[in-house]
Structure formats: structure tokens, C-alpha cells
């Protein structure tokens, strides 16, 4: 019945097939299935990341950075597209392009070294060699055309877009605008503060690359377009900025200023900054460029270090490296300094300018009236056993019989008295109210916070010194903002640099960035302050900040750098803050000169003339027009009319019309005027005596006048000296009408020979010490 020889498979075989072979195979399937699940589902994220990191390759499409304009739409900073040239010897080889041809083209169009290019070509594993940076459209177009003609692969010579930031005004407002680095990120200033707005959103070209670096296929290309940055309109007026920079720079040179100068011009009613400058600035297009003097200084440091090291022994590589490191550190310190905006990042003692704030506080609290009188008989005041001198200590006495006089003389005892009437707590409340304990919040980076005496531990000496601006260290911007509140009707405004931000279609994204933060003082207090400060500038017929025809209010300050210098070698910060028109302020300005080391260092001598000069140039631009008294009118300059070809009678009538009433010196015998001194168009005083030539011979043979030295002379003396020499004087400076004014500088050197009738500009200043 059983057949061992049966051809049919027996049951045992079948069972074994089912239970051994099949089950073992299925077990193996489970093992594989589990591993597949773990890899493709559980660990998928990890592997996908790994996949992306090797497969994805992306290029940035740079967004165009927004433009920065001044308040009138003048371009301050603009980006344009440039290209970086990337050579890939790998792709050259891969696509069988002719390396010699490419090297030749690159050297021809871009002036690159042919041999160097060929050397690169011989290293086919290289794929990303930046051979030229920031080439212009002209070169770019040439290369593109050439590539198309010669059928050069896209990535063999790749032109990658980049943007270049250009600043058309080079140096203008450099410390405010800031610059961008190689990554097109804003550094410093507006460029940094508004980086998010300006930057836009970079686009990206993502593509898949195979293991040897070629793109896989077009359909994988994923393009995310760039969104261009927004445009920023500054409140700054580039013309005003120019005037401010010009005169600040002149003052820095004239007074041998050790630690730079800064100036701020602001609309006192809105807080819009019209100009803000720090000397000497830098070229925004070359931010790492230093002045020749600085380069020289670095060279000297290096030489000095090298010589020192030589004495120690041989100059090893290590020593050289350490010297280089030190020099590099110096250099970056210099960069850092030239890039810094002194108006907001550096603290100073405001000195007497702060007395404006002290007075306003006391007036508001009704602790004083404009008529309150103070005593300064001893020219010092004792506070808690400490004797604080008046600036005029040891000089002829002054009598602070009312607020105007106290302010004009900048009497320390008077303001210490005013401060003590307020008491520490109220004084401190006002510091808070004026925003002096806090940053102003201006839209610029790196604003410094003030260092203010501790409220709880403020002693009476602290209070006394605070009243005259010698305890609390604040920024120039805080000072001008507090000052503005004293004269604008009592409002603390928000200082700001940017008026509005627009997108590329001109839609306004953001505006009204400034405005009033709060009212601190009553309108009455503010009105008293305006009158008082106008009187200070008008004193004695005009101080250095006075400009005839204009109503200007102001206060000077000369603070001691008590924390940075010693009594025997005291250093000073000279400042002046003024506003105009005094009855309805439209502009307020503060000039701070840090450590003038010339003969003069009082704010009224060093800073006030800058304010005056800038105001004089700015007023027409700001549409602030003069209103002269008859007396002032007579002193105003006029322009030399064109008299060439006129007869004698016609000439006299032309001169009269120009306001030149002095009879001219007539030389020669011709019928018509052939030459005049000064020439047509020159500005000159109405009292000038012009010289008119009626024939060439007399002009050729005229004897030149010798310029006398008028330095230190009074207005009358200088006028006489120059007139006697046959020259004309043009009076410069606000204090011309002041009896104490003295000639400080001349437009030509004494002893020089000039044709008779030539205008010599003489700048007068009044030396009234710190008091205005």
C-alpha cells in the first residue's frame, strides 16, 4: 500500500515545503519589509535631509536694495546690478569647451592674466573660481554675446548677479547713511537701521545637481523671484548737510580740534533731522579709506614697534605677526571712529547750554520769574561745603539782576540757585520728562544712553553741578531735543532721520515717523525762554551767532571734561545751540566741538561762528527771510554791478541802484568803463569805495595796495586800516555791531599785494567768555 518508489511527491515533502521553506522565506520577507519601513518611513526625514544636502544646489538672486533719498528726492545711496565672473574648469572640460579660447576672452574683456587662467583650466576638479568681481553691464554684455557665439556652456563661465551700492555724494552725511558690506548687509546708519526695509527679499534659484555636479533637468529648477527693497526718504536736506559739514570741518581745522566735532540741525516742531554731521566723515564709496595723516600715523606705529622689537632681538615671523596684529587693531579702531556718529553715540557734559533746561524747569514750576534776581558778588557759591566758582571768577564782576542777564553772563551761582529751588526730586522728574534719562529712540543704530546721577543718592552738590550741566552726560541729540522742547511751545518731539518709506511703485509703506511725544512745558514758559535766548544772542548789538535781519535765539556752553582731564590740563567741549526765527522757531541747531586745542575754546568763540555761518547759508534754503531795520539794511552787503562799457553817468546810477553810495575812484580818461575792482558780481559792503578804470593803460599801471594786518583790531580800526590802504573791507560774523568784536581772521594774508579797491573779508568775533 505504501509505495516508496512512488513518483508523486509525498505528504512529508509537501509539509516541509509549506512549513519550512515557505515560512523561512516569509520570515525573511518580514525582515526586509521591516527594514524598508524603518528606512523609508521612520527615518525618512533624516535621509531626505541627507538627500537634499547632496542633491540641491542653489543660487541667490539678489534683491535690488532700496534707494535712499534726501528730503527733496536727491539720491543719497543707490544700488546697481553688477556681475561676478565665475569660472568652472570642471564644466569647461565636461562640455568640451576650448580652454584657450575662454582664457583669451577673459584676458581680453576683463584684463585678466591669460597664464593664470590657463593654470586654473588645468585643474578640472575646480568648479567655482571667482575670477572677477563686480563687472559692469558693458563687460557683462560682451561676455554674454561671446558665450552665445562660441557656444560656451552656462556654467563654464558663469555670470552671477550681484549688486553694488553707490553713494553719489561720496562723503556727504556719511555718518548718518552708513554703508553696506560685501554681503549687501547694511552697516552703520540708515543702511543698518532700515536694513530690513532696504534689503528686500532675496530670491533663490534651486536646482538639482547630480553626483558630478551637473544640473539634472530643467523641470527641477525652482525659481523664487526676488522682491526688491523699499526706498527710504530721509528728513535730511543734502544742501543743509553740505553747509553744516563745510563749516564744521573749517572749525575743526581752525581750532585744532582733538576729538572731532558734531552738529545737528533739526526742525524743533517735528523732530525731523535736517542735517547731522560728524567731522571728518569718510567716503561712503570707500569706507575703509583713512586720511593720509592716519595712514602716516599707522606707519609710525609700525616703525616704532619694529624698532622696539629689533632691540629685543631678531624679527621672527612670530614677532612680525604680532606687530601686524597690533597695527591692524589700530587701523580698525580708526575705522570704527570714522564710522561712528558722534551726535548720538558719544556722551558729553552739555555745560552751560543745559542752563536753558534748568531755567525752563524753574519757570514752569514758578520758582522763578524772568525778573528774579540772583547774587554773584563773591563769584562763587558754596554748596554743602563745596565751593563752586562762576566762570568769571577772578575777572570783572557781572550782575545777574534778572534771568536774561544771568543767561547772558551764563552765571553759575545764579543757575545753581535756580537748581536748588527745584530740589533733587523735581529736578530729576524733569530730567525724565525731558527724555534725558532715556534714549531718544531716533531711527539710527547704536544710540548711546545717558549717564545720569542716581535719583536716590543725588546730593546737593550733584544737583548744583547738574544745574550747570556738569554732572549728567548725555548725547548731543538728547541735548538738542530737550532744548527744542524749551522753545517750541513746550513739546518733547521725536527726533527722526526718515520721513517716509515707499515701495517700488511709489506706495507709501510708512510715514509720519516723528511727531510730538509729550508736552513738558507750558506755552508761556516756552515763550519766555525764546525771548530770553534771543536777548542773549542780540546782546551788545550782536554776538557771534547774530545775523542781522534775522531773529535768532541761542546759548553757548563750554564744559570741562572733568572725567577725562586733570585740573592743570583741563580739556573743554565747546558748544552752541541756537534756533530761528526766535518768535516762531523753524530750525534749531547744535554744534559740539570736542576738545579744541587752539587759542580759543569757549563755545561762543568756537561753536557759535559755525552756527552763524551755517544759518546764514541755510536760511534762504529754509525760506526764512530777513527783515532788516534801516540801520541793518545799510550794513548789508550788495553785489558789484557790471559797469563795463558804461559811461560815467550811467556808472554812477548803476552804483546807486546797487546801494553803493560812496563815490568811486575813477582812473583813466576814456569814455567807457573798461575795468572795475572788484569785478562784477562780487559781494561787497555798501560803504565800499570801488575803483573804476576808463582805459587799459591806467589799469595796467595801477599801483597795488599792501594788505595791512588787522588781526585783533576792532571793527572801526580794521575798517580804517584797510580803507587807508586803498582796500575795501567786508565784515563777517554776527558780532560786527558789537563794540567788543575783534578781527579774528582775514581772507587774504597781511603783506600781500592786491589791486586797489579789492574786497578783504574780515571775520569778527566777540570774546565774551562762556556767556554767549
Amino acid at each position, binding site marked *: 500500500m505504501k509505495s516508496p518508489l512512488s513518483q508523486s511527491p509525498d505528504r512529508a*515533502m509537501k509539509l516541509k515545503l509549506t512549513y519550512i521553506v515557505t515560512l523561512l522565506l516569509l520570515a525573511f520577507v518580514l525582515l*526586509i519589509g521591516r527594514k524598508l519601513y524603518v528606512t523609508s518611513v521612520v527615518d525618512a526625514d533624516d*535621509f531626505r535631509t541627507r538627500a537634499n544636502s547632496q542633491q540641491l544646489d542653489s543660487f541667490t538672486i539678489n534683491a535690488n536694495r532700496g534707494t535712499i533719498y534726501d528730503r527733496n528726492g536727491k539720491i543719497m545711496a543707490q544700488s546697481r546690478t553688477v556681475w561676478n565672473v565665475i569660472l568652472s574648469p570642471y564644466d569647461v572640460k565636461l562640455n568640451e569647451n576650448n580652454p584657450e579660447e575662454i582664457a583669451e576672452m577673459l584676458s581680453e574683456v576683463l584684463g585678466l592674466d591669460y597664464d593664470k587662467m590657463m593654470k586654473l583650466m588645468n585643474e578640472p576638479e575646480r568648479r567655482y573660481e571667482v575670477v572677477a568681481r563686480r563687472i559692469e553691464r558693458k563687460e557683462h554684455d560682451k561676455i554674454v554675446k561671446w558665450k552665445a557665439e562660441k557656444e560656451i556652456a552656462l556654467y563654464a563661465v558663469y555670470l552671477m548677479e550681484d549688486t553694488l551700492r553707490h553713494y553719489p555724494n561720496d562723503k556727504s552725511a556719511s555718518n548718518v547713511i552708513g554703508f553696506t558690506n560685501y554681503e549687501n548687509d547694511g552697516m552703520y546708519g540708515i543702511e543698518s537701521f532700515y536694513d530690513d526695509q532696504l534689503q528686500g527679499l532675496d530670491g533663490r534659484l534651486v536646482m538639482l545637481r547630480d553626483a558630478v555636479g551637473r544640473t539634472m533637468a530643467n523641470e527641477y529648477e525652482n525659481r523664487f523671484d526676488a522682491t526688491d527693497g523699499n526706498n527710504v526718504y530721509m528728513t535730511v536736506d543734502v544742501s543743509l548737510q553740505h553747509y553744516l559739514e563745510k563749516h564744521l570741518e573749517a572749525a575743526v581745522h581752525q581750532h585744532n580740534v582733538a576729538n572731532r566735532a558734531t552738529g545737528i540741525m533739526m526742525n524743533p516742531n517735528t523732530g525731523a533731522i535736517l542735517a547731522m554731521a560728524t567731522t571728518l566723515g569718510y567716503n561712503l564709496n570707500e569706507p575703509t579709506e583713512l586720511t593720509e595723516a592716519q595712514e602716516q600715523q599707522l606707519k609710525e606705529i609700525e616703525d616704532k614697534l619694529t624698532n622696539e622689537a629689533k632691540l629685543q632681538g631678531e624679527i621672527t615671523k612670530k614677532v612680525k605677526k604680532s606687530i601686524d596684529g597690533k597695527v591692524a587693531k589700530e587701523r580698525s579702531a580708526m575705522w570704527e571712529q570714522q564710522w561712528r556718529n558722534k551726535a548720538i553715540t558719544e556722551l558729553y557734559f552739555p555745560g552751560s547750554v543745559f542752563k536753558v533746561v534748568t531755567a525752563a524747569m524753574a519757570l514752569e514750576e514758578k520758582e522763578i520769574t524772568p525778573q528774579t534776581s540772583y547774587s554773584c558778588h563773591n563769584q562763587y557759591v558754596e554748596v554743602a561745603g563745596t565751593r563752586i566758582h562762576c566762570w568769571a571768577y577772578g575777572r570783572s564782576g557781572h550782575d545777574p539782576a534778572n534771568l536774561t542777564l544771568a543767561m547772558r553772563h551764563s552765571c553759575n551761582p545764579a543757575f545753581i540757585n535756580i537748581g536748588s529751588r527745584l530740589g533733587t526730586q523735581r529736578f530729576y522728574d524733569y530730567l525724565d520728562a525731558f527724555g534725558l534719562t532715556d534714549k531718544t529712540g531716533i531711527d539710527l543704530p547704536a544710540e548711546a544712553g545717558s549717564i545720569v546721577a542716581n535719583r536716590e543718592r543725588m546730593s546737593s552738590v550733584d544737583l548744583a553741578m547738574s544745574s550747570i550741566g556738569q554732572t549728567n552726560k548725555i548725547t548731543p541729540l538728547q541735548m538738542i531735543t530737550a532744548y527744542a522742547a524749551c522753545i517750541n511751545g513746550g513739546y518733547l518731539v521725536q527726533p527722526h532721520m526718515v520721513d517716509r518709506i515707499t515701495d517700488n511703485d511709489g506706495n507709501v509703506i510708512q510715514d509720519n515717523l516723528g511727531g510730538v511725544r509729550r508736552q513738558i512745558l507750558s506755552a508761556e514758559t516756552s515763550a519766555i525762554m525764546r525771548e530770553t535766548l534771543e536777548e542773549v544772542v542780540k546782546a551788545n548789538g550782536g554776538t557771534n551767532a547774530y545775523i542781522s535781519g534775522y531773529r535768532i535765539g541761542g546759548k553757548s556752553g563750554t564744559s570741562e571734561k572733568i572725567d577725562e582731564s586733570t585740573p592743570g590740563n583741563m580739556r573743554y567741549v565747546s558748544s552752541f545751540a541756537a534756533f530761528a526765527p526766535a518768535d516762531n522757531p523753524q530750525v534749531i541747531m547744535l554744534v559740539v566741538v570736542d576738545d579744541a586745542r587752539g587759542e580759543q575754546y569757549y563755545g561762543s568763540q568756537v561753536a557759535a561762528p559755525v552756527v552763524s555761518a551755517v544759518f546764514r547759508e541755510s536760511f534762504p534754503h529754509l525760506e526764512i527771510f530777513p527783515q532788516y531795520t534801516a540801520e541793518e539794511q545799510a550794513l548789508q552787503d550788495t553785489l558789484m554791478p557790471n559797469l563795463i562799457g558804461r559811461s560815467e553817468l550811467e556808472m554812477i546810477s548803476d552804483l546807486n541802484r546797487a546801494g553803493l553810495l560812496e563815490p568811486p575812484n575813477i582812473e583813466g580818461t576814456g569814455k567807457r568803463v573798461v575795468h572795475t575792482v572788484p569785478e562784477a558780481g562780487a559781494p561787497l559792503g555798501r560803504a565800499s569805495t570801488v575803483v573804476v578804470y576808463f582805459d587799459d593803460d591806467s589799469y595796467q599801471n595801477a599801483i597795488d595796495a599792501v594788505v595791512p594786518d588787522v588781526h585783533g583790531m576792532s571793527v572801526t580800526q580794521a575798517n580804517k586800516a584797510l580803507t587807508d590802504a586803498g582796500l575795501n573791507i567786508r565784515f563777517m560774523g554776527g558780532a560786527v555791531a558789537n563794540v567788543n568784536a575783534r578781527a579774528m581772521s582775514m581772507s587774504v594774508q597781511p603783506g600781500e599785494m592786491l589791486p586797489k579797491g579789492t574786497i578783504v573779508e574780515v571775520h569778527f568775533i566777540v570774546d565774551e567768555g562762556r556767556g554767549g
Partner: protein
Amino acid sequence: MNMPSANTRSHRAVKATEPKPSSRHRRPPVRKPSTAPAQSGWRLTKFDIPLFLVTIVLAVFGLGMLLSASWAYAAREHSGDSYFYFRNQMMFMSVGIVVMVVISFINYRLLLNKWVLFIMCGVTVAMMLAVLFGAGGVTQGGAERWLKIGPITFQPSEILKFAMIVVIAWMAHRNPERIKTTFGAIRVAFVVGFSCMLTILQPHLSGTVILFVIGISLMSISGVRWPYTVLIIVGVLALIPLIPPIMEAAGYSYSDARMLSWRDPTADVQGDTFQTYQSLVAIGSGGWFGLGLGESRQKFSYLPASHNDFIFSVIAEELGFVGGMLVILLFVVFILRGFYIAKRAPDRFGMMLATGVTVQIGIQAFLNIAVATNTIPNTGVSLPFFSYGGTALLMQMAQIGVLLNISRQARIG
């Protein structure tokens, strides 16, 4: 072995389909198996639709995936001809399907013919030796595995697998009693051992493993007593630690790297573990449903042999876990159908043959997937129906043809 009562059902089945007396009468006394088809099972019209269908599905699916996996590589290697591999494979597949159908009409018992058997074995061994002694002329990856005859290049080990299956099946069929003896076991073990030896000397480790698995599978159902089978398995497993030194002595030193990339595929992604790592990155990129058909990124030169040994990784990358499982399940269906046919084969030879062919294709598929998923250390196995390789495909189709013929004669339906 006793099989009495348990066998009733199959006997009854035989009774039902076979005219019993004549069959008994015709059985030769020398126990020589008949080469004639079993009368009732042999029907020309009978055709195993499930097996045929799953084969065709695998073939078409495989061809599609080969196109996807190979076009990037083909474009690069054959100057822009993205369809190079696809075209070749399709040609072989068309021929293969025809061959499969034709063979399904040829009685598998023809293989029991002494001459057929001898010639097949002789030619196979000769080819293996030819390859071994470097007459093949084609070297790939440091090993001599290929033989080139005329325009056709193929691995003789593919033929060796089939030859070994036939020989063991023949032994089990020829004398079911003797195979139960120690001598019988030794004979089977010798056939397996000899085949493995010829292969490992190439050296062709994966081929050897496949031969061994087929051999053991057949041995375990052939009637060889289980202690012998277990003894051989244990013995071979004990020999495994000796493989690396032997390989090294033969001048091949890549086994360490294989073990390394198995344990930590991220250890040296630029060097030794590159293949395994890239395979896992591809599979891992796929997630549940994959990146989409044709969307593989790893096939762009990251994955070596993306159209060959690592085609499964491309499938998993493009079709995800679901696609990968589908492939595995198709092979499971194929195997179950193959075993179903084996169990209903009219004779032991048919059963052994069907089992061997099924195990061969199945184990090759699973080993390939196991390598791609890093379940086992890297060894070069191709994925049947999917990997590029014309002659291998042709061989597989031909063997499925044999399977189809067994099915015609089986007691199915």
C-alpha cells in the same frame, strides 16, 4: 518514512484523474521514471493564468522601472540615448515571453533524459571552469563571472543554478529510497558543494549563497534525512568566519568594507560605505508614497548601478514604501504560486524542479532587496525582472516556462 493514511487524499486525487491500471502496468520494474507525460494532467489548453499574470506584471513593472532608473545613466554613457538599456531589455523580454510560452509546451520530463542531463551538466561545468581559468574575457568588479560567446555575454552561474536544481531533482525522483541513506545525502551534498565551490572560486559570493540556499531548500524536501541537512547548515555557518581570510588569500580584500557599511552605512560615505549609504538615502527620500514615477534624484550618478543591483532603491525613492512593498508582495505571490504548483506537481521531479526554480527567483529577489535596504551586507545580486541584464532575464523566463509546463501537468483546478 511512513506515509500511509496521510497520503490517502493525494492517492484519491490520482485515482480520480489517472486510469490506475494502465499506469501501474506501464511502470517499469527498474523504477526508471517515465519520460512520458502523465496522461490526464497533460493538456495543451491548460495554462497557469495566475503565474503567467504575476510574471507579466513583474516583467512590465520591471521594464517600466528600468526605463526610469536607467535613462539618466544611459543618456550619459550612450551619448544621449536615454532608451539604450530600456530598448535592449525590452527586446530580451519580448524574446523571453515567447521563449517562456514555447517552453511551457515542452514536457519538463525531457530533462530526465540521460543525454540531455549529461550534456547540460557537462557544458555547465565546462563553462564554469572556462570562466574560472580566465577564458571568459570579461572581468567585472575584480571577479571573473562572465562568459562571452559571440555577441552574447552571460554568467554561467545562472545556468549552473538551473543545472544543480535539475540534478538534485533527478536524484530525488530517480531513487526516493536511496536519498534517505547516508550515501544519498552525501551525493546531494556533493552536488551542492561542488556547485558552490565552482562559484566561490570566481569568486562570486552572492551566487554561492543563492546556490546554497536553493540546495538546502531542495535538500530539506527531497527526502534527505533532516539531521544531515541541519549538519550541513551548521557546518557551513561555522565556515563563514573563514570566508574573509580565504577571499583575502585569493587577493580580494573588499569584504571588510562590506561588513563596515552594513553596520554603519554613514561611516565613510565618500568611500567604502558609498553604495549602501546612497541606497538608503534613496529609499529614505521616498517616504510613504515616494517622489513620483520618474522623479528619482539619486539615479543621477549618486546611486551606483541604479539600473542594476540598486534598482529597488530607485523604486522605493520614486514610489515610496508602498511601491517597495508592492514589489515584495508581487514576489511573495509569485513564490506562493510557484510552491502551489510544486505541491501539485505530478511527480517528485516536477515538485523539486518547481520548488528550485521558485526558490531561485524568490531568494534572488529578497537578497537583492535585503542588500538595498541594508538588511544584510552588500553583495552583488540583481533583482529578477527589474535589473538590467538580458541573458539573466531570458534564463528566468525560460525557467518560468518550465514552471508553467509543470503546472499544465499538475493536479490543479
